[in-house]
């Protein structure tokens, strides 16, 4: 349990719950109940059933033959893109909607960047018949239009966040303000391993099904549970947390986190938090974040809405600070090319977030017999407009 959360809600020096008193009753209620609820047999039964029958789990662990040949190593893709709604986000929203029901909440709020978490939240709200309000940055509403339409079709209300950089950070601020204004009947479904304790841990546990399945699947395919490397993109870090979870304390497994460098780490238009960030407080958590020397949070930039966030979850801050994880950043350009390459080589159109993780093979070599698992966090349907504009398709 060296790299997982401790009983006080910290990963090393990172985490905690830096929240205004207005949020205390809700966050405390969650903290006191989440492990108990998740341990209930009836909860697990319902959760597992929905993951299987509704989400379509287990997702395949696919050996990418042509990609492997090109980069002379053994690459497996964990196909979270095949989840219902098109990304890993739904693992968490299924878990949290069941949690919300057990806590007797009938109104659900969420923030979203790429819109994947918003869609996944709207989906489970439709499934359970609960009211759903999704906050989304005005800029993201434009660049992820298909997901906005999907949320509306699913019955959610999409509220534009018009403050600050008008992206994920600001949508999160608005969701938190909504929760302050609605303190009794509302559950906030945070979409990544960010926010005050217990959110990072709860979301990581819901996403941990990813590495649980990788273990089982590798055992069958390679006769071993542990790969040599697990690679994932990190926005807030939920798909990464899920892919690393059961390997955190297995030092033989190399953990590689890929962040968005935007136009380049030093251009001022970047979201590479580990390279550019310092310890501070964002959205209720002590973690690494991009900020001015005065402690004002800076506006990030990435072509990928889901990675366009100035912080990372506290688990990742700890993986970075302790050296357990290797952190790499990838530019818009390299990510877009890697995304296109996966289309051509494997017939899979990845989300632009995921394309960042795939770009690692351009800069980092692996031994020919190394087993490298890349978490394919989502599919690229939502990004078609961006791909079309970028490649003039």
């Amino acid at each position, binding site marked *: 349990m060296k790299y997982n959360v401790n009983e006080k809600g910290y990963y090393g020096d990172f985490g905690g*719950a830096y929240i205004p*008193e*207005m949020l205390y*009753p809700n966050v405390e209620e969650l903290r006191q109940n989440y492990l108990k609820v998740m341990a209930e047999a009836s909860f697990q039964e319902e959760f597992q059933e929905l993951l299987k029958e509704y989400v379509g789990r287990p997702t395949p662990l696919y050996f990418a033959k042509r990609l492997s040949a090109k980069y002379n190593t053994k690459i497996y893709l964990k196909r979270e893109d095949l989840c219902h709604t098109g990304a890993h986000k739904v693992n968490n929203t299924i878990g949290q909607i069941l949690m919300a029901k057990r806590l007797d909440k009938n109104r659900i709020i969420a923030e979203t960047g790429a819109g994947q978490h918003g869609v996944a939240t709207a989906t489970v709200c439709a499934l359970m018949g609960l009211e759903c309000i999704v906050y989304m940055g005005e800029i993201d509403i434009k660049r992820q239009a298909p997901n906005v339409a999907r949320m509306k079709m699913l019955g959610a209300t999409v509220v534009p966040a018009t403050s*600050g950089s008008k992206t994920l950070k600001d949508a999160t601020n608005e969701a938190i303000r909504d929760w302050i204004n609605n*303190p009794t009947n509302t559950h906030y479904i945070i979409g990544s391993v960010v926010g005050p304790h217990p959110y990072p841990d709860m979301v990581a546990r819901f996403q941990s099904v990813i590495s649980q399945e990788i273990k089982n699947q590798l055992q069958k395919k390679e006769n071993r549970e542990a790969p040599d490397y697990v690679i994932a993109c990190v926005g807030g870090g939920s798909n990464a947390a899920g892919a690393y979870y059961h390997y955190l304390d297995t030092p033989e497994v190399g953990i590689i986190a890929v962040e968005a460098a935007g136009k380049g780490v030093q251009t001022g238009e970047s979201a590479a938090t580990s390279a550019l960030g310092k310890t501070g*407080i*964002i959205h209720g958590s002590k973690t690494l974040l991009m900020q001015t020397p*005065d*402690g004002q949070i800076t506006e990030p930039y990435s072509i990928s809405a889901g990675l366009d966030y100035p912080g990372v979850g506290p688990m990742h801050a700890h993986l970075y600070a302790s050296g357990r994880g290797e952190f790499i950043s990838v530019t818009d350009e390299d990510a877009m090319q890697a995304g296109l390459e996966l289309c051509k080589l494997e017939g899979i159109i990845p989300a632009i977030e995921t394309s960042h993780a795939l770009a690692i093979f351009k800069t980092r070599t692996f031994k020919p017999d190394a087993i490298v698992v890349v978490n394919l966090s989502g599919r690229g349907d939502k990004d078609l407009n961006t791909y079309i504009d970028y490649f003039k398709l």
Partner: protein
Amino acid sequence: MTRIDKKLQEKKTLLSIYFTAGYPKLEDTVPILEMLESNGVDMVEIGLPFSDPLADGSTIQASSTQALKNGMSTQKLFEQLEGIREKISMPLILMGYFNPVLQYGVENFCKKCEEIGIDGVILPDLPLAEYQEHYQTIFEKYGLANIFLITPQTSEARIKELDAASKGFIYMVSSASVTGSKQGFGVEQTSYFNRIAALKLKKPQLVGFGITNKETFQTATKHAKGAIIGSAFIKMLTETGVSGISSFVKGIR
């Protein structure tokens, strides 16, 4: 006795004003303080602007954004307040979010407050547990009062804890909302005010959030020791500027 405690012992209802440092203009901070004091305001909360004020509604968000654009920072505010005790005698409280304090360095921050004559701080996102475990000894070393919030949802057990931990007074948030969003007080608020009054807490309470005029000020202070006006004051500054301060204060009591 501290300046805050002395003020709280005065036999009158206290009016405290929140404003964002460096707003509307960067150099308005000290003139605003002087005008508030000369118009009989009892105490102030000087807002340290933050890029992401989670507990604030649109008025304070906008004033914070403008103040930061004007060039306000923790460093700048301390420069402006250098020598302030030659001009101002009422208690001065800094109110802001924890990250800028953390970046300034908690110890440096507290030390600087002591040097300048800042009496207390309100840091809504530094909760009790984190404060007690990591920072209390530093705040106390420099005699800086840390004032805690309670809300209508705060349990009685926790109110007791916050009452014991809070220095000076308790900041009683009037309703479940961010700053500046509720209009007027209904039965929900008055029953909450009565409930808290009946608890006979050790620390006096100042009510904040939603105090906009004479009427809400009077309702809030029927039981509480005083009340804090923030968004309504900032709205006035936006519309009228610093010249409106005198008539604003006279309109409240």
